[in-house]
């Protein structure tokens, strides 16, 4: 892959992170008990469901349902 293409992907990933930050229902996230709260914040920053699930110990499919309630989009770039 050309460097410009890789740069383009990285730009898209950064835009995706901004979109997650903007879209998230932060009041909902702050209202959740631990470790769910940290898992959702991690998901906003990384966009990586598996990573957030693994680090927090919250089951992946449970975290996926919670992310919908917290209005955190999974952004496909």
């Amino acid at each position, binding site marked *: *892959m050309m460097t410009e*293409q*890789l740069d*383009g*992907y*990285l730009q*898209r*990933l950064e*835009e*995706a992170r901004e*979109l997650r930050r903007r879209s998230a229902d932060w009041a909902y996230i702050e209202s959740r008990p631990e470790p769910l709260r940290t898992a959702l914040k991690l998901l906003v920053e990384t966009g*990586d*469901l*598996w*990573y957030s*699930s*693994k680090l927090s110990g919250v*089951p*992946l*499919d*449970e975290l*996926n*349902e919670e*992310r*919908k309630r917290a*209005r*955190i*989009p*999974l*952004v*496909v*770039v």
Partner: protein
Amino acid sequence: MSLAVADTCLLINWLSFRRWEDIFRLFRRILLPSIMVPELRSQRIRGRVEELVYRGRLAILPRADYVDREALRIFNLVNSTPGLPRIDEPEAYGLAYAALHGLPFLTDNASPKVAARSLSSLKGVVVYDSLDLLVMLYRGSGLRTAVEEFMSDTSVVFSRERLREAGVELEPRGG
């Protein structure tokens, strides 16, 4: 196409989509690595997975040493290459299996796709995300409707660039 390897996130997304069975118009059977199965805890998803296995639409891949070795190589290569998005262990395993067997890998995460396009040792490995699958399944206004339904059912958002590349123009949201 006959077979494809999928990761858990994409499978969960598709099982939430109202037209989820359409994915089997593209692939006769989907292969899910067994290392990803423990990630599925909800009864609803597990029930659907069990039904798909029973119907022969989904097969669980046993863990194999030769795939583990390739997965570790990919994991180390991607995660030590500056600029590439980090790849997770299950994704590396799925990508390794797909690469070794000449099958497409289905994932909504960027890392495997970027890696397959960036690394010479993964040249020729095909990685599809959900938008790629929707584009293969539907045309014209049908595609736009399917994209809107998919986004609504799954809370997945496709980036503007990807939608533009796919020729999909969505109605502006909100007032």
